[in-house]
C-alpha cells in the first residue's frame, strides 16, 4: 500500500455527524493529512493545513465542485455555481459584484430593520415561554430578515428551505432520500428562478443591486439571476443553523448566557465564538489541479480534499482551551467562514443578522433553558438543529 495515513471514518455517517468533534479529535491524532477510504478522498483537519489548502487556490481549485463530487471526473448534477465553483479570473468578476452588495456600507442601512424584527420576534417567543426554538424562533427570524433584504416577495418562503436542502444535500454522496426529495419538490427550482427575476425583486433591495451590476455591464442579465439565486441558497440555511446552534450553546452554558444578559453588547462576539465552537459549515472541499504536498504528504492531481473547518476551529495549536465555549474569547483568525478568495462573502451579513438577534434576546430574556432532547438534521453540507425545546423566562418589565 502507498505510504499514507488512512481511516475508515465516514464524515457522512449518522455516527460521525452526531458527534463530529470526537471524530475530529481522532483525525487530528492520526496525522495532518488522512485518506478517508470510504469515499476515496483526502482530508485536512488542523488549523494550519486548512489555512494552507484554502489560501492556495492555484493548487486547490473550486472548479472541481463545492461538494464531494469531482467535476474533473464526473459530470456536475447541475450547472456549477458561478461564484463558489469557479477559480480566478472568472471568480473575481462575480465575487466583486457580491462583495459590494454585501459590504459594511450597505449593511449599515439594513441594521435598524434587523433590530426591529429581532426585538419583535424575541418578544413574541418570550411571551409564549415554552417554545420549540427552531420552528418558532431561530428559523422564522432569518427567513424574515434575509429575503426581506434581498427584496423577495412574502409568499411561500418555506420553499427557500426546501431549495436549501436541495443545494446543500448535493454536497455529500448520492443517497436514496435525496433523489426522492428532488422528485417530490421538483417544482421548487422553477419557483426560485421566477423569484430571482429582475421584475420580481423589490426596489432598494440587494437583489436589485446585483441587477444594477448587470446594467453596468459587469455581469450578464443571466448571471445576475444566478447570483441572486446563489444568495438565496447560501444565505438562509447557513444563518438558520448557525443562529440555532449558538442559541443552544448559550442555553447549555448558563454562565456564558449570564455574561451576555449583563452586557448585550457582547452579542457579536458571542456569535463569533459560536461560529468557532459549533457552527453550520463544518467542511468544504477543494480539488487538486496538480500534484502537491501538504505537511509532507504527497497528493496527486485531480484529487478531492475535504477541509474540516469545524476541526480546525478546535485545534489546540491555534485556539487556547479549544473545547470551551467562552463568549468573551478574542478570536484571532476565524476560520468558520472559510478563508482565502472564497471566504464567505456573506459573513458580514451573517454577523449583523446574528448580532441583532442575540442582542435583542439578551435584552429581553432573563434565562433560557433546554427542556428536552435536541435533534440534529442529518443531511450533508450543513450542521443544524431540527428541534430545540426551550423555556424562556422574560425579564421582569
Amino acid at each position, binding site marked *: 500500500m502507498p505510504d499514507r495515513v488512512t481511516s475508515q471514518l465516514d464524515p457522512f455517517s449518522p455516527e460521525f455527524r452526531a458527534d463530529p468533534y470526537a471524530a475530529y479529535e481522532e483525525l487530528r491524532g492520526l496525522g495532518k493529512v488522512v485518506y478517508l477510504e470510504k469515499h476515496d478522498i483526502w482530508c485536512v483537519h488542523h488549523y494550519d493545513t486548512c489555512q494552507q489548502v484554502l489560501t492556495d487556490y492555484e493548487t486547490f481549485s473550486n472548479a472541481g465542485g463545492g461538494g464531494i463530487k469531482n467535476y474533473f471526473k464526473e459530470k456536475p448534477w447541475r450547472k456549477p455555481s458561478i461564484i463558489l465553483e469557479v477559480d480566478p479570473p472568472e471568480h473575481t468578476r462575480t465575487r466583486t459584484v457580491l462583495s459590494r452588495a454585501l459590504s*459594511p456600507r450597505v449593511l449599515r442601512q439594513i441594521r435598524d430593520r434587523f433590530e426591529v424584527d429581532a426585538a419583535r420576534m424575541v418578544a413574541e417567543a418570550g411571551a409564549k415561554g415554552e417554545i420549540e426554538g427552531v420552528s418558532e424562533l431561530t428559523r422564522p427570524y432569518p427567513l424574515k430578515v434575509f429575503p426581506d433584504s434581498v427584496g423577495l416577495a412574502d409568499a411561500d418562503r418555506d420553499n427557500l428551505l426546501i431549495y436549501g436542502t436541495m443545494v446543500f444535500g448535493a454536497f455529500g454522496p448520492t443517497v436514496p432520500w435525496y433523489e426522492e426529495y428532488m422528485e417530490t419538490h421538483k417544482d421548487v427550482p422553477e419557483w426560485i428562478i421566477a423569484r430571482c427575476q429582475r421584475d420580481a425583486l423589490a426596489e432598494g433591495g440587494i437583489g436589485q443591486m446585483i441587477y444594477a451590476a448587470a446594467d453596468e455591464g459587469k455581469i450578464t442579465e443571466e448571471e445576475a439571476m444566478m447570483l441572486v439565486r446563489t444568495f438565496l441558497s447560501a444565505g438562509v440555511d447557513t444563518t438558520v443553523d448557525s443562529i440555532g446552534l449558538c442559541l443552544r450553546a448559550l442555553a447549555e452554558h448558563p454562565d456564558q448566557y449570564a455574561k451576555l444578559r449583563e452586557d448585550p453588547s457582547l452579542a457579536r462576539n458571542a456569535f463569533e465564538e459560536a461560529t468557532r465552537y459549533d457552527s453550520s459549515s463544518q467542511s468544504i472541499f477543494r480539488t487538486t489541479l496538480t500534484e502537491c504536498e501538504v505537511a509532507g504528504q504527497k497528493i496527486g492531481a485531480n484529487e478531492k480534499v475535504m477541509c474540516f473547518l469545524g476541526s480546525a476551529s478546535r485545534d489546540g495549536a491555534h485556539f487556547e482551551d479549544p473545547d470551551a465555549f467562552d463568549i468573551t474569547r*478574542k478570536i*484571532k483568525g*476565524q476560520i468558520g*467562514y472559510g478563508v482565502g478568495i472564497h471566504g*464567505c462573502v456573506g*459573513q*458580514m451579513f451573517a454577523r449583523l443578522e446574528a448580532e441583532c438577534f442575540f442582542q435583542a434576546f439578551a435584552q429581553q430574556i432573563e434565562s433560557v433553558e433546554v427542556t428536552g432532547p435536541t435533534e440534529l438534521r442529518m443531511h450533508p453540507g450543513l450542521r443544524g438543529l431540527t428541534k430545540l425545546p426551550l423555556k424562556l423566562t422574560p425579564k421582569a418589565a
Partner: protein
Amino acid sequence: MPKVTYIAHDGTETVLEVAVGTSVMEAAVMSNVDGIMGECGGSINCATCHVYVANADSFTLPEVGAVEDEMLDATACDRLPESRLSCQLIMTEEMDGLRVRLPEAQY
C-alpha cells in the same frame, strides 16, 4: 522591531512593535487595539480593518490590489485617498514609523 502608531478616532495613540511579515491588522488585533476588527482574518472579505495612512508619502507601501480596491469602495466610513485595508499592509523594516488613523466605525 519596526514601530507602528495607531491613532484612534478620539486621538489616542498606541505604539506597537510589529514584527516584519506581520500585517498591521494582525498586530493590532493581537494587542487588542480597539477600532480594528479584522473579522475575516485577513482574507479581504470583511473590510473591518480599514485605516487611513497618515504619513503614506514617507513610505513605499504595497500597491492597492484589485480586490482591496473593491472592498475599499464599500467600507463603513468613507474612503479617502489614504485609505487602506490594514490586513494588506505587511510589515517591512522600511515601514518603521508608519502612522495609521482609525475610522470612527468598521461596520
